[in-house]
């Protein structure tokens, strides 16, 4: 492993952000279809602009990193990967565009998403839930339920989940994962007992 310099670190961080954001966008775009949610669809469009901006910054970073001629292949690879994340973000924006134009209400589309192996669901956090006043990091929702939180809705606002986001009673969690996890998530959010013991082998 060659020493990772400051510039390299920056390039790597930017690529991680691009990949994560583009994949979050796919999930959010399909969620916007499922809930026929204009707000989520608009969120995807906001993220699309963010990805465009990040992508330009990423390319500038790579180009100004002063690589040697023999390294040019490696750096071409990085540039291409950046282009791919941008393409994925565009595709997500197109899906969200279907919702924004009001074309997303066809029942077949909902069927497609609900039947797909990974599904998207919404769970409201009740006052009794163990999740209340916990940060997402401490709530360990993916470990407990296999579901990945895509977004939180608090009143009229959408929050992008961060490890330090504190969950409040009344929040709606939008999460994706396998169908088996949906029940676990709803139980956890509603505050019904007996979830720990089931998880042991």
């Amino acid at each position, binding site marked *: *492993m*060659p020493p*990772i310099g400051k510039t*390299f670190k920056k*390039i*790597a*961080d930017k*690529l*991680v952000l691009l*990949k*994560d954001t583009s*994949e979050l966008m*796919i999930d959010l*775009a*399909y969620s916007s*279809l499922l809930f026929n949610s204009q707000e989520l669809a608009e969120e995807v469009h906001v993220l699309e602009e963010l990805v465009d901006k990040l992508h330009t910054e990423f390319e500038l970073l790579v180009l100004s990193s002063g690589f040697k001629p023999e*390294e040019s*292949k*490696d*750096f*071409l*690879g*990085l540039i*291409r*990967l950046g*282009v*791919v994340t941008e*393409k*994925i973000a*565009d*595709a*997500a924006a*197109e*899906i969200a*565009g*279907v919702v924004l*134009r009001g*074309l*997303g*209400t*066809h029942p077949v*589309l909902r069927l*497609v*998403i609900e039947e*797909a*192996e*990974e599904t998207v669901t919404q769970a409201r956090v009740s006052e009794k839930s163990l999740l209340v006043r916990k940060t997402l990091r401490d709530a360990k929702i*993916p*470990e407990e*339920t*296999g579901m*990945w939180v895509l977004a939180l809705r608090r009143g009229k606002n959408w929050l992008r989940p961060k490890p330090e986001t504190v969950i409040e009673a009344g929040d709606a969690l939008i999460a994706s*994962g*396998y169908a*088996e*996890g949906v029940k*676990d998530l709803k139980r956890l959010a509603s505050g019904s007992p007996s979830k720990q013991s089931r*998880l*042991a*082998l």
Partner: protein
Amino acid sequence: MKNLSELMIDLAYSAALFNSRVLAEEVLELEKRVDTLAYLLDMIAMLAVRRAEDAEDLVGISMVAAAADKISDAAADITALVLRGIGVHPILREAFKGMEEMLTRVEFKPTSILIGKKLGELELAARIGVDIIAIHRGEKWIVNPSHDEVMVENDVLIARGASIGVKKLEGLADGTLKEFE
């Protein structure tokens, strides 16, 4: 199409990360399948239209299908890096360690408690939040394995999940971890 195109992204990044030509070719195979599905869907949609309202309903479907196709094209672009020998800089590996969800490659030791079990009964997705993308068994690749697939020793798994889940899977596979919790 939605499933296939998302699976392809994971597979394609795995191919780049582990520099695997076989995996890359597998992605291209899937890309052809998504292309065919996109044609079929468009044809069905065209046949289904009888009135203007139908067309309005169905244009949404065909746009979503086109987007899924675009995602699978993007995955195919990643594999071109492997197949044309362009490769990626070692910082890619570094970058992948920092992902929210990471990709991993684990080998099953004979002492692993998972051996002889069906993927369906293991419920890896629900228990540790890890998603199995492909199994490499001998010369064969099993992409998107079914619930009935039984784990055999020396299987190599390509999986995706949050880092805690991935570490658990690695422990379970090499036999150092004997239970889920």
